[in-house]
């Protein structure tokens, strides 16, 4: 516990700059900030300076960021070769690619973590930065960074998070001048048009508010109309609603002429929200500044992978999964109207559901959850047939994401029963150990925190559910037997490299997630509960993981997937349940499982909003003439969702 906290703090201090240096830095930032005489953060004077007049934009011609000929070599491996990139004023420019393609390396070069090979140049607003990038100089030049998962310290308050590394001390007492800090912080938030309580720990805020804090912190370095903000996988844990808020703020920010470099795995998000996209593959730019208008997600996936992606649409996926899928799609009732109440009594017979052939045959294969109640989730009841993949989604805080943890004993439920193969388990007394013994397993969301021990080997991680419950704890482990077991499972999910003795932390994120899948598939689950199984995973690994889940289902395992990614759910699930305020609000089945329908049901019948408000209005003033022809075709536009009744 302690070490992890410590780790978070160090990282935090690292990215925020050392407090000892902040006076100098503040001065530098003050020099650089032409628009705001008393420093970039002192623009409290204007109520909405974010919506700056177009005059600000007229004076900028140079790209906000120009990367020229940047290479990076690790040993004999060239992670980046001659990469070039231009960020125009007022655009959201996405950088995409598979894990290991070099985009994080590029981000680390830009933030000063890595020194690039000699020969490259990085220019901000036309003036070159010294290489390797010094974080404080970059900050002074107007480069702000929002790190992975927002980079906030949950235990610290909003004002501390906003001002860390920039605290100003009293002249004599060297005390932090909290009055000044509070004023700065509230001015910042005002600039974003968000008012937040300054003295609550960030961890207690809603996701969207945390996103606002992270953006506000980055913004205080970027004076309006200048500079750029780099978002390095910042949005990976944001749900749809938070994401909309996030892009709403970003839209206002780029509206002033500030540019945004968005590094993301979520191709649909990129297509929807970015103006242009640069694709990296094997450290080489394969597509530079491609307009996203009219670009489809599958086109982008093809560029990222360098090949067509099998299984990225639903129909070929069904073919992939083999014979079981046919039964499953038949089994899924097309549309089932659902109110909050009717399934409260678990045993109640229900004509419509009994009609499916899989269910008729599967008296013994039925898994039933009855009256599951957690912190928010209230009296959730559902049944899963063998081989069925059921998705469960909802807004953040609706309680949908509790379900995987409650049914696997990872979190104690307040009430609820799980019936599986004739045995009934009381969820209020279930712990992980008993759940695993009943072959009910959980693939949790936070891989680093709850999924894998990163400094142990792949083999040991995969074997942990077995060794963890071994009765004869002192009998020697059978290494030869273990080896073939591990080999089998890491091959089944295509871990690269398939090296059992390698430490998990050295794998890419996608491969770590595959190891996590292998670990729990190896427990041979009858019920597999997953939470965001492909979060922050590249497209290739996503396809592999999806296929592995389908294969498990094909062998008769029932699968419960909790997630907010409507595209993933639509791709994977036979049925999707939507939770609102802790209760089941809608069920989508058969042809009704589409991203649009899922979003519509999640937002209580409302249509999916565009991520970028201005993209629809087409009025972003800073857009270069050729950068934004027409609003791009939106996959989730207002068309009424099919197959939802509420």
């Amino acid at each position, binding site marked *: 516990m302690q070490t992890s906290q410590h780790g978070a703090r160090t990282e935090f201090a690292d990215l925020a700059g050392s407090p000892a240096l902040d006076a100098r830095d503040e001065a530098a930032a003050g020099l650089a900030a032409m628009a705001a005489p008393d420093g970039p953060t002192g623009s409290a004077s204007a109520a909405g300076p974010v919506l700056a007049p177009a005059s600000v934009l007229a004076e900028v011609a140079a790209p906000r960021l120009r990367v020229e000929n940047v290479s990076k070599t690790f040993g004999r491996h060239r992670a980046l070769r001659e990469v070039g990139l231009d960020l125009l004023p007022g655009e959201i420019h996405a950088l995409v690619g598979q894990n290991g393609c070099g985009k994080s390396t590029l981000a680390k070069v830009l933030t000063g973590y890595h020194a690039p090979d000699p020969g490259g140049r990085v220019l901000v607003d036309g003036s070159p930065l010294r290489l390797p990038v010094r974080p404080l100089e970059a900050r002074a030049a107007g480069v702000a960074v929002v790190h992975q998962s927002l980079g906030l310290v949950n235990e610290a308050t909003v004002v501390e998070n906003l001002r860390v590394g920039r605290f100003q001390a009293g002249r004599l007492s060297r005390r932090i001048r909290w009055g000044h800090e509070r004023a700065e912080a509230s001015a910042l938030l005002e600039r974003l048009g968000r008012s937040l309580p300054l003295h609550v720990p960030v961890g207690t805020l809603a996701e969207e508010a945390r996103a606002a804090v992270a953006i506000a912190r980055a913004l205080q370095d970027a004076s309006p109309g200048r500079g750029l903000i780099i978002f390095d996988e910042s949005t990976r844990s944001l749900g749809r609603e938070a994401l909309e808020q996030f892009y709403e703020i970003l839209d206002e920010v780029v509206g002033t002429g500030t540019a945004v470099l968005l590094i993301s795995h979520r191709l649909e998000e990129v297509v929807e929200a970015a103006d242009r996209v640069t694709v990296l593959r094997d450290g080489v730019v394969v597509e530079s500044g491609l307009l996203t208008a009219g670009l489809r997600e599958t086109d982008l996936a093809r560029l990222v992978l*360098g*090949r067509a992606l099998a299984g990225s649409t639903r129909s070929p996926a069904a073919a992939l999964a083999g014979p079981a899928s046919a039964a499953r799609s038949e089994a899924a009732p097309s549309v089932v109207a659902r109110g909050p109440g009717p399934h409260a009594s678990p045993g109640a017979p229900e004509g419509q559901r009994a009609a499916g052939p899989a269910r008729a045959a599967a008296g013994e294969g039925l898994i039933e959850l009855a009256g599951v109640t957690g912190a928010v989730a209230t009296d959730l009841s559902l049944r899963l047939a063998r081989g069925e993949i059921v998705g469960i989604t909802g807004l953040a805080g609706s309680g949908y994401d509790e379900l995987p943890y409650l049914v*696997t004993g990872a979190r104690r439920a307040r009430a609820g029963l799980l019936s599986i193969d004739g045995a009934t388990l009381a969820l209020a007394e279930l712990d992980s*150990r008993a759940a695993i013994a009943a072959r009910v397993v959980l693939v949790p969301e936070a891989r680093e925190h709850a999924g894998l*021990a990163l400094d142990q080997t792949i083999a040991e991680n995969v074997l942990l559910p077995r060794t963890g419950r071994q009765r004869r704890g002192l009998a020697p482990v059978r290494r030869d037997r273990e080896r073939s077991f591990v080999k089998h499972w890491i091959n089944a999910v295509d871990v*690269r*490299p398939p090296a059992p003795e390698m430490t998990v932390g050295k794998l890419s994120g996608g491969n770590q997630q595959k190891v996590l899948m292998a670990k729990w598939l190896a427990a041979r689950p009858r019920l597999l509960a997953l939470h965001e199984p492909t979060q922050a995973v590249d497209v290739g690994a996503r396809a592999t993981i999806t*296929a592995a889940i389908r294969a498990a289902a094909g062998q008769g395992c029932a699968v419960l997937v909790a997630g907010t990614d409507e595209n993933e759910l639509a791709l994977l699930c036979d049925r999707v349940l939507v939770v609102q305020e802790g209760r089941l609000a809608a069920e989508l089945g058969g042809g009704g499982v589409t991203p649009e329908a899922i979003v519509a049901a999640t937002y209580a019948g409302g249509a999916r909003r565009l991520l970028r408000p201005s993209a629809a209005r087409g009025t972003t003033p800073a857009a270069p003439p050729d950068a934004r022809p027409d609003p791009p075709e939106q996959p989730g536009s207002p068309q009424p969702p099919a197959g939802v009744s509420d």
Partner: protein
Amino acid sequence: MTVTAPEAHRQPGRGRGRDLRRGARAGGQGPHGRGRGQKEWHGHSAGYQGARFAVLTVWALLILVYGLAEPDTFLTTGTFQTIFGSQQALVFLTAALLCTICVGEFVDLSVPYVFGLAAMIVPVLNVQHGWNVWLASLVAIAVATACGAVNGALVVRVGVNTIVVTLGMGTFLLGIALWISHLTAVSGLPSSFSKIALLDVGGLPISFYEGLALMAGLAYVHLATPLGRNMRFVAANREVSRLAGVRVNRLRFGAFVAAGLISGIGGVIATAATGGFDPIVSHSYLMPVFASVFLGTAILQPGRFNALGTLVAVYFLATGILGLQLMGVAAWVSDVFYGGVLVIAVTISTLLHARSS
């Protein structure tokens, strides 16, 4: 279980980019065909091997240097017997500390004082109160185990900070030891009792072998058993372990109890060896125990707390100090040597290890 890899698994392999293919090649060779170029394979890189054996090499050099400098006094059986016959207390104490450190409880400061109390109880009960010496030993071990259990209960069940609990417990127990002994050393244990520590086996006291067996046992548990692996996972990530069905709290509690038990046994053996005990002595063990255990992380399994490495560290430090003393350096040298070697050795090992990965 035969899950055939779904078609999509194989497909991504083909058009995959360069760096991934590189990875595939690395794995394709299997565990036996690792090329030298696979840097990520820390298990077999030169740096890692260097880190493993650096201290052992220094140990050998040390013996060589002392042997050349003081050939008459150093290269004798007596020296050998002194080094390997005098460190039992430290071996037991480091073993006790390893129990808790290997489940991620970093600083059990109470270990030397639990040891001291157990070592004190035996002569107090036997010499001053006329108890049977074996019964007194059992009581001492039981008390030590109970102290470990109290530590465990407070840290694991209640959740009090480990440093606070064990610092308080250690100080408290030192006080108790001083109280029951009336602030003086108590000796006069029967000489037959000293056989459990001093019985001569092949030139060395039996307690050397007892320490060796204890460390070998710990090493076996850590390296070869599910229990050892679970301990490592609990140290690495408690939440991951809990979700995998490991009984995390039971394991942590058990580690504290085991630490108490081993300290108790060590205390009894130490008091048997000297025929009595001085309560103040337990103080002097605190730093050497931590120094040896941390130095152990630089030996054999770099970066990891490990039993055999710790054992080597104990005798390495003893060699260094004895050699210096034979060369005529005064007693202060032991502290300088302990401290200096600890920092230098662990720094070098960390650097070698970092370069290898």
